[in-house]
Each structure stands twice: as structure tokens, then as C-alpha cells.
């Protein structure tokens, strides 16, 4: 009896390991990297936090097409372009500060929806090959983008703001810099040190669960395990976090040293809420249905083609918002290349977080952003310490991005084979 129990637990652990093989691998790499890099904790925590806020929306933009069975949407590059066009337009009219960003976003909304719609239509012509189509479409769109901004701006398209143009009057300069009022305008609305932010978030979560329990008590409904365990977990985490802060000076210092942009955080939360909400709506249900089987969805009267286009439009729009947040955080962008790696980096991050081309959720996105960007920061430093050569780490960084996608996809395929084998040992 007891041996049966242990073997069952063994199977469970094995399954857990196999199912999270990709994530675990990168987790180990990250830990090793952190140790090798030998950097102050404040530096690492600060970097990770700022990159998380900078990149997360771009990664979240990938989720909906995965639900729709279209795989990783490489064409979020087009959303990034829409955001850049928005910024170019508002810079052209010499807007500044929040107004500049808001106008940029307003310009990028119709653009990204249009791009998304066209992309969706193209994908409907190449069903089953969306990923490769998306990749090629990215190159193609770059060609048009370059044509417009490198050659047509100036001679054909009038540009009001002279500082945008190259000295010969043909084509835009690169990089395009946001002025001081615009740079980090959203971030600067409200900065809070990380320790306070974590306390705040934990309290909010606690409040949320408590309020739900209260609500149910008032309505005399049964309280499900979800609320009570949620409440318990948030109390526990809060206690652990408190103890950690009290016991480790360096940890507390690192947190205090790091400021997080609350307004950006709220934007991210809104996107998360939107995605969660979407999955509970009719549209979300249709998207999932189409993702499972297009012929069946169609025969039940779900307009699959339209739904797929909608999914890509949502994704492209979110990508535009994500790229805008990214650029305001950095403060400038290289006019002709800033969008290039948006697709590959976001996809690599999402895959590292444990998503596959068939399944992806917000948790995967957050975890992936954390791990992928930790590795990004750490690898050049680790390289420097190990081989006394930062360049090596730099190579490693680029190599890793592309390798991640290949390795993650291969591991996911291998995983299903392994999981099957474990199950053989399982039965009753």
C-alpha cells in the first residue's frame, strides 16, 4: 500500500518535471548565471524589474492567437511598426509628454487594427502555416516600412518637424529620440519603491479574496475552496515576504533601491484583466473552439475565418500598446530596426515560461519574461567572469535567443513522448 503511494507520488513528480522541462532548464541556467555573474543583488533585481515592466505587454500580445490555434504570432512585428508610426506622427507635430504618447497610441489603434485585419486575412489563405507566413510577412512589411520612411518621407510625404529628417531632406533620421518630457512619461506618473509595491500588491490580493468571501457569506452561498485557499496563500506569502525583509539587509536594500512604475503596472494589469475576461466571453469561447478544430467550429455555425482575423487584430493592437510602453521606457528607438526583434524575443520569452504553440496563459508570459530577461542581463556578465571576455557573453545572448525557440519547440515535442512513457507505469 505504502509503496503504491510512493510510486504514485513518483509518477506525479516525474510528470511535473517533464511537463516543465523547458522552464526548469532555463531556471537552472538563470541561477547558475546569477552565481557566476556575481553582481550586487540591487543591480539584478532592478534590471529584472525594469525589463519586466518594459516587455510584458508585448509577450501578453501573443496569447490570443495561440488560443485560436494559429501558433506563435510572429506578425506582432506589424503592431510594433504601428506604434512606431504613431510616435513618428506625434513627434512630427512636436507633441510632448503624456499627450505625445496618447496621440501616438490613438494613431496606432486604427493602423494596428488594419494591419491585424490584413494579416488575419492572409493567414486565412495559408491555414496551418501561420507561423512561417507571419515571419515572412514581418520581412515584407519591413521592406514597405523602410521604403516609406527611408525614401518617401521628405520628397513625397511632407514632414513638418525638420529635426526628424536626415540632413539631405530624404528619409528619417535614426534613432528617433523622445524629448525629456516624453521619455518615461507614463513611468514617471507614479514611482514607488519595490518593497512598498510588493506589500501593496499582496494586500490588494488579500483584500480581493476577503471581499469575495464576504460577498458570498452575505449572499449565503457556499464558500468554495478557491477563496479560502487563496486567502490563506496570500496571508502566507505576505508573512514570508515580511520575514525575508526583516532578516536580510541586502534584500531589503535591493528592494528599496528599485523603483517600479505603478502606472505602467496598472496598464499591464488592465491587459491581464482584459485577457482573462476575454477567455470567459462568447468571443473567447469561439476563439478556443476554432483553435480546437476549425471544421467542427464551422459546422456549428461559428464564423471561423472572422474569429481568426479578430484574434490577430487583438494581438496586433496589444503589440502596438506594448511597443509604445517599451519605447517610452527606453526613450528612443532606432527608426529602421527597433521592431525587428520584437517577435523573436517575445516568442522566446513565452516559450521559456512553459507555453507551447498550443497552450499559453498569463502565468507563462510572466514567468517567461522573468527568466528570459534574467538570462539576458546575466549572460554577458557571466561570460566576462568566466572567460574574462564580455564579448563571449554577448554572443551567447544572441545565440540563446534563437536557440531558445528551437530548443523549446523540440523539448515540447519530446515532452509528449516522455509523458506517455511515464503514464505506462501509472494505471490504477
Amino acid at each position: 500500500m505504502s509503496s503504491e503511494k510512493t510510486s504514485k507520488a513518483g509518477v506525479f513528480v516525474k510528470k511535473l518535471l517533464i511537463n516543465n522541462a523547458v522552464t526548469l532548464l532555463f531556471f537552472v541556467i538563470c541561477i547558475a548565471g546569477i552565481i557566476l555573474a556575481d553582481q550586487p543583488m540591487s543591480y539584478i533585481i532592478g534590471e529584472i524589474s525594469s525589463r519586466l515592466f518594459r516587455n510584458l505587454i508585448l509577450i501578453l500580445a501573443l496569447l490570443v492567437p495561440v488560443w485560436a490555434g494559429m501558433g506563435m504570432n510572429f506578425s506582432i512585428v506589424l503592431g510594433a511598426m504601428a506604434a512606431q508610426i504613431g510616435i513618428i506622427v506625434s513627434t512630427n507635430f512636436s507633441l510632448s509628454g503624456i499627450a505625445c504618447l496618447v496621440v501616438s497610441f490613438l494613431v496606432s489603434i486604427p493602423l494596428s487594427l488594419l494591419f491585424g485585419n490584413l494579416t488575419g486575412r492572409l493567414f486565412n489563405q495559408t491555414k496551418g502555416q501561420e507561423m512561417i507566413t507571419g515571419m515572412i510577412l514581418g520581412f515584407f512589411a519591413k521592406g514597405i516600412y523602410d521604403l516609406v520612411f527611408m525614401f518617401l518621407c521628405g520628397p513625397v510625404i511632407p514632414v513638418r518637424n525638420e529635426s526628424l529628417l536626415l540632413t539631405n531632406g530624404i528619409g528619417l533620421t535614426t534613432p528617433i529620440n523622445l524629448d525629456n518630457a516624453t521619455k518615461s512619461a507614463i513611468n514617471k506618473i507614479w514611482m514607488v519603491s519595490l518593497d512598498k509595491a510588493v506589500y501593496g500588491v499582496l494586500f490588494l490580493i488579500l483584500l480581493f479574496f476577503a471581499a469575495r468571501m464576504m460577498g458570498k457569506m452575505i449572499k449565503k452561498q457556499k464558500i468554495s475552496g478557491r477563496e479560502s485557499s487563496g486567502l490563506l496563500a496570500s496571508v502566507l506569502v505576505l508573512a514570508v515576504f515580511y520575514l525575508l525583509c526583516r532578516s536580510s539587509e541586502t534584500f531589503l536594500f535591493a528592494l528599496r533601491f528599485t523603483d517600479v512604475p505603478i502606472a505602467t503596472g496598472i496598464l499591464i494589469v488592465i491587459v491581464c484583466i482584459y485577457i482573462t475576461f476575454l477567455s470567459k466571453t462568447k468571443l473567447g469561447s469561439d476563439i478556443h473552439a476554432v483553435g480546437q478544430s476549425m471544421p467542427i467550429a464551422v459546422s456549428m455555425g461559428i464564423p471561423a475565418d472572422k474569429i481568426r482575423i479578430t484574434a490577430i487584430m487583438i494581438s496586433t493592437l496589444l503589440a502596438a500598446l506594448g511597443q509604445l510602453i517599451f519605447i517610452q521606457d527606453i526613450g528612443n528607438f532606432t527608426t529602421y530596426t527597433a521592431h525587428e526583434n520584437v517577435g523573436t524575443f517575445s516568442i522566446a520569452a513565452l516559450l521559456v515560461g512553459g507555453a507551447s504553440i498550443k497552450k499559453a496563459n498569463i502565468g507563462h508570459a510572466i514567468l517567461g519574461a522573468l527568466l528570459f530577461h534574467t538570462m539576458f542581463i546575466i549572460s554577458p556578465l557571466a561570460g566576462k567572469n568566466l572567460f574574462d571576455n564580455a564579448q563571449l557573453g554577448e554572443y551567447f545572448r544572441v545565440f540563446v535567443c534563437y536557440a531558445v525557440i528551437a530548443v523549446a519547440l523540440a523539448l515540447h515535442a519530446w515532452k509528449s513522448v516522455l509523458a506517455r512513457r511515464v503514464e505506462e507505469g501509472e494505471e490504477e
Partner: protein
Amino acid sequence: MDTLLHFKNIKKSFSGNVVLDGVDFKIQPGQIVALAGENGAGKSTLMNILFGMNVIAETGGYEGEIIFEGKSVKVQSPLDAMELGIGMVHQEFMLLPGFTVARNIKLNRENLIPSLISRITPKSYQMLDNPQIIKEAAGALGRLGMEINPEVTVDKLPVGHMQFVEIAREIDKSNLKLLVLDEPTAVLTESEAERFLKCIRKVADAGIAVIFISHRLDEVIQLADSVVILRDGQMVFDEKTENTDKHQIAELMVGRKLEAESLMNVNRSFEEDIILEIKHLRVNMPGERSRDVSLKVRRGEILGIGGLAGHGKTSISNGIFGMYPARGSVHYKGRPLSFGKIGEALNQGMAFVSEDRKGVGLLLNESIALNMVYTDMKVNRRFLKKYGFFSQFDKKSAREVVEQMIQELDIRCTGPDQIVGRLSGGNQQKVCMARALITKPELLFVSEPTRGIDIGAKQLLLNYLVKINKEQGITIVVTSSELNELRTICDRIAIIGSGVVQGILAPDAPNVDFALLMSGEKGGNT
């Protein structure tokens, strides 16, 4: 009574190949019409026209007129059909495996509650009302008398239950006036089928007209109010059921006289030359688990495996062929077989026709010829032209064999080059069968050999199995839920119950003995 539906002189051809030619009949509300005909007679095509399926428009539409409730209608899409009140259960399953039963039943008709956003944006942002969805789905299942948990996902259901879920989905539609069932009982066991027929009767009694397609003529007689028969796309018969009988229907379908079935292999004797020995086999196949099966197969015989659905009879061959995880030991010609490896049994000279023809099946976009020789090409490397390191499919050498198979199994097609996806359901199954037969296996496993195959072709097929057994000495293990079929061709029949062998009987053993074993009363001898 008013006519609900009138097919008026319907004609349809697929690139010149006429498959429906002047079909013309009427249906009244609450009436059950059986649509019978051989494989490829055009039944599914007619229903696809009625339901506005894409294939029809893509292949040039149809001629004739459909009159629904007195009005001439052009059904352009499944959605149009649903709005008219036409529901359809297709020949292949139309359920989303990762969705729950409830969500499948209410698919695209979900109960919604307005959300904050949906007041200002389109309706698609309304939220799903899950408790209500579950309640109504459970209600629909309840009306069918089925106890299926509406909250499990469909991929965890046994095949038999899926069919009920599909019916529940259709009867849950409040405006349902006409229900089309394309071979709904083909995947059900006899007892499930009986229950199913009762459900359909109930549906019809509620005033809903039903078009029912089946190759099981007993069911047709039992259930239908009238029978329409198609032969090669022409309507050859439209009569009240009480004015006809099973034999007339069968002969009209096939267009020739049929011999009565007889037990072919009673009292053949074999030496104790064991070709396959199964010991304590335990297969973890969802919905069909076997616990401890031990069986010996003698060289040259036809062994039947029977039993009720869900008791594990289908898991045996699936386990041996590595389709599901299994434990125990299997010896083939005295040597242990590593059956966990997919392809191992094939390489050892066995072949398998699975009961799940859609899942393990055909290359739907390839020709009949390539599909038939595909396995043989991979396993035995026949039909290949060799160019140094490369080899290529040799069409010419395959052609003869393929043409012979098409003739033997009476596959209705335009020729060996026709794309398999364009064959009728039954003819696709015959291609599956041919693919296994062509490998000339020493030991052949067949599951549900006649599923979805018409009565004429059924006899042909069973005869062919016996023929290759006698002439080529191929040992055959047949798994089937139709006991009569097993009795017709087998030397011995093993009955599986609760995951173990309950006993082995001769084909001429009395009915009671079979019934007793199936119900789990141990008995019988080896």
C-alpha cells in the same frame, strides 16, 4: 398534415461524376424516414446539401429545389440550416475534444450574461453563464436518459457516449424541426444502439422529423415510419415501412439477390501450433481497459473476440500494436514481442485494422493507390523504384494489386487515382481494410471489420476474410461488437467481460451461452 421538407428532383455531380440523380421525396413533422443505400450511393451527399456544407458549394453546387415548410430555400451554410431548424449528427464526430460535454452541447448557443463592456461593444463580449450552460446540458442529457457528467471533457468519454452527446446537442435546440442522423449507430454496441433508438423515438414523438441513415437494417425496420432507398444516386424506393421487409430493402439497395448468411467455420480442427500467446495482458485504454487477458491464437484459425462495450475487448489488439500503454507478455511465434514499441508488431509480420478508422487512418489528400500500399511500402519496402540511395513510389507495380483490391472489396470509386478524402465514408473504410490486407500478414488483427459498411459489401468482406484465411493461410483475430458477424466467420469466439476472458465458445454454441458469458457468468470451455 403539412409537409415539412420536400426534396424536389435533386441532382448533384462531382466534376462530371453523377452521384445524385433526381432524388425526390417528402417528410412530415414527427415522421422518421430511413435513408438506405450502398456505400457511395449518395446518402451523405444529399444530407450535406440539406445542411449547406462547404463541400457542396466548393464542388459547384447542386440542381433541384429544397422546399422547407412550404418555402423554397437555398441553404448556403450550416448556420442557415440551423436557423431553419435543421440539426445534423454527421457521420464523423463533430465534438471538440478539449471542451466539456456541457460546452459542446451548447456550442455557439451558449447562455450569456451581459458584461460591463458588452453594453457598449458587440455582443461577442458577453460572458458565458457556466452554471446555466451546465444545467441545460444536463437537462438535455436527462431527456435522453443518459447519465453523463456534463463537466468532463469530451476526450475522456468512451466513443459510445459521444454519440449521445451529439444528439443532446441537437435536441437542445429549441427551434429544432428536423434532425438528420448520418449512421449514428455505427459506433455503438447493440445494447447502446437499442437505447439510442428509444431516444430517437422520443424525439420524433415530440413532433420533430428525423432522417435516419443506417446500414443496420434491423434498426431501420424497427424505427422508421418510411424507407427511402438510393442506388447509385437514383431513388429506387419510397414506401411505408409496414409495406416492406428487411430482405426487400437489402435487395433493392444492392440491386441483386443476396444469399443468406451461414456459419462458415464450424468444426475445423487445428494442431496446437500456437502463433501468438498473450499472458496477463493489461491495457490502459480509456473507456476500454482490460485487466488480465490470457489468450492463445492457433496458426490458421479465425479467432473472434466479442463482448460488451467498455469491457476491454478492443483494447487487446490496440495494446499489442502499441497504441496504448500495456503490461504483460506477448509471444509471437515463440519469441517475446516488445509491444510497447509502435511499429514493432507490424515489422514482425502482423497487421492491424483499427476500429478508429478516422484517428489512425488515411492520408485523406492522397490517392487510393498510395493509401493502400503505404504500409506495405514502409514495412516490406515493396512498390519502390530504387535509385541508388533513393527510392520512390512505383505507381505501375502497385496498380495491379490496387485494382484487384478495389474489385475484391467492391470499392466504389473513379479509379486507383481518386483522392481518398472524396470517397464515401464506407468506401474509405474499405481502403483501410485493403491497406492491411496488402501487406500479406501472417497474423491479421481486424477490429469492427464491417462498421459503416453496407449489407452487400459486408458479405463480400466477410467472405474475403475467410477466403484469404483458407487460401493464403493467414491467421485472423477479429474483434467485433456484432456477435452474428463473429459467428459467421470464426472458429472460436472469446468473450471479454470486465477486462478478462470470460470464456471461449464455438460459433454454433447456443445463444444463451453467449449471453451468460457476456453478462459475466463464468462458463464455457477452451
